[in-house]
């Protein structure tokens, strides 16, 4: 009976399942297996994003990454043996991950889906450069976003190779853009040199796209935010509240709004929202008990990292330490704080204290069309 359910209805049911349940359901018979792979309905509205922790290891091919299931609050290990080269995580693109092979100092980018084990290099940039800022903009097309991901990648700044032996490397004041629909890079135009310098020197973190502007934050004090207005190719710079006192600062997007998460020296972790006129408004403070538990024996927020999706913000350090999560609880329509235990052991074996880079991903078990 159930094996005769029309595929589109079965796919409708599958789209309501979290990825671990879907993975098991799809293994039950051929028809269900085919359906799970062929009809990847956009699950963004039904399912929560999962936290994926990529260990940061220099020049070694990563063996596994670790996934946290927000519903059952447990960890999974996902093999990364399908990656041909050692990589570093750049950022999420819906259900894909943007990565950077580390074998080359010049920027090359690739995308992968750790669930379907798909991997593909993006074409080479027009201008070779090292350590530029990379930003991702999802092109909102909800019906196709899983099967045919539509996105743009912006690369700004970086250092270009020396043209002559004496000249030495220079900052590359140009902006390039990759469009997934055309699978090509094009040079968008020039950019102010001071922004190119800042973006290169301070090794910016994951970009945040909000309301037509792509933002990056500098990686150290005194923090400031740089923004690229996509439509007009103009740059802005914003001050950051308590810029001198923050021990860590990250940008995330919360319900479409640019949000700054920061830890005050000797104080709490706070969240500010960008409001009209490029002003910041304090919206939340991490409850003290979570802060104490998170910091443990450490006295500063210095090693804190943070990622966000529109509906959740995760603060983390390394793989074994716990995480503090601020997430929207759908049934209650409000945001609450949670503690998440770190990943300490796996399959009976102790997990090393690895430094990690985290990303929030919409898991998809269906292969995307990656040309």
């Amino acid at each position: 009976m159930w094996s005769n359910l029309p595929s589109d209805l079965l796919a409708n049911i599958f789209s309501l399942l979290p990825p671990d349940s879907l993975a098991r359901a799809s293994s039950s018979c051929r028809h269900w297996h085919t359906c799970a792979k062929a009809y990847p309905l956009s699950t963004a509205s039904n399912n929560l994003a999962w936290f994926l922790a990529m260990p940061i290891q220099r020049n070694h091919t990563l063996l596994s990454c670790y996934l946290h299931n927000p519903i059952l609050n447990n960890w999974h290990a996902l093999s990364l043996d399908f990656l041909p080269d050692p990589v570093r995580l750049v950022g999420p693109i819906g259900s894909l991950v943007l990565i950077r092979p580390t074998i080359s100092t010049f920027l090359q980018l690739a995308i992968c889906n750790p669930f379907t084990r798909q991997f593909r290099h993006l074409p080479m940039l027009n201008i070779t450069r090292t350590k530029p800022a990379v930003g991702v903009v999802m092109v909102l097309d909800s019906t196709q976003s899983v099967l045919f991901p539509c996105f743009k990648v912006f690369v700004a700044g970086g250092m270009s190779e020396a043209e002559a032996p004496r000249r030495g490397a220079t900052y590359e004041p140009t902006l390039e853009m990759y469009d997934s629909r055309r699978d090509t890079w094009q040079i968008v135009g020039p950019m102010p040199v001071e922004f190119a310098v800042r973006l290169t020197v301070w090794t910016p973190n994951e970009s945040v796209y909000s309301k037509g502007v792509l933002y990056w934050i500098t990686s150290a004090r005194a923090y400031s935010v740089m923004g690229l207005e996509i439509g007009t190719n103009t740059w802005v710079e914003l001050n950051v509240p308590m810029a001198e006192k923050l021990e860590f600062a990250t940008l995330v997007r919360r319900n479409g709004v640019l949000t700054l998460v920061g830890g005050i020296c000797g104080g709490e972790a706070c969240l500010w929202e960008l409001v009209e006129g490029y002003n910041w408004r304090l919206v939340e403070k991490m409850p003290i008990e979570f802060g104490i538990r998170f910091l443990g024996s450490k006295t500063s927020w210095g090693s804190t990292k943070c990622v966000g999706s529109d509906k959740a913000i995760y603060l983390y350090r390394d793989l074994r330490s716990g995480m503090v999560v601020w997430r929207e609880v759908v049934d209650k329509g409000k945001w609450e704080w949670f503690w998440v235990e770190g990943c300490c052991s796996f399959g009976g074996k102790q997990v090393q204290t690895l430094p990690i880079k985290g990303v929030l991903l919409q898991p998809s078990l269906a292969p995307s069309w990656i040309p």
Partner: protein
Amino acid sequence: MASSSTSVVVSNKEKENKNTKKVTLKSSDGESFEVDESVAMESQTIKHIIEDGHYSSLALSLSVKTTMASSSTSVVVSNKEKENKNTKKVTLKSSDGESFEVDESVAMESQTIKHIIEDGCANNEIPLPNVTSGILSRVIEYCKKHKEAAGESEPSVTSYTSNSTTNPLTEWDTEFVKVDQNTLFDLILAANYLDIKGLLDLTCKTVADMMKGKTPQEIRETFHIKNDYTPEEEAEVRKENQWAFE
């Protein structure tokens, strides 16, 4: 309508309508409600007033505060009034030949039926060759309940995905889907064919919930699915999503 602390004034208006004898109920703040006498007599209090004949030209004032059964008198009138007004009906015919007469507004919870009616193809009966009478009667029950609920509050209440803690239909929906698998299966197909989003969402979610947290073998047992993999093939498939099995 009349609030619980008003007094009720009853007067007779026989002259207007020969067929349906009506009475007018007047609330303390001066608003008049003309209703069928039969409807008004749902209230025992009003029934006695009418039967005793104490109402002609003299307005008899009932202080609702002084009677115990005050709050129940006003509600009945409104429901029946709604029913008597504008009830255009359609007949739906199941695959096994049974006919169901329903309010047009209820039937239009189905987008499929709505289009048939709007296209003017309804005539007397709308045949539904894909739906048996057993399933059709359940579907109608669902549509009636959700239409009623929509009528009493904002339209968004009928959306299945609305906040479950405040949605009064959630409990009713939960009971509604407590059926055997065959019925559930048929309800999904019917909701899809008739294009009733709320019912489709409800039934699909029920099935999804039955799948959550189960191993493939447990899923096969629950849904009576034959494992058509060889042991080698099954190992391959599990390997694809190895992480979910650890």
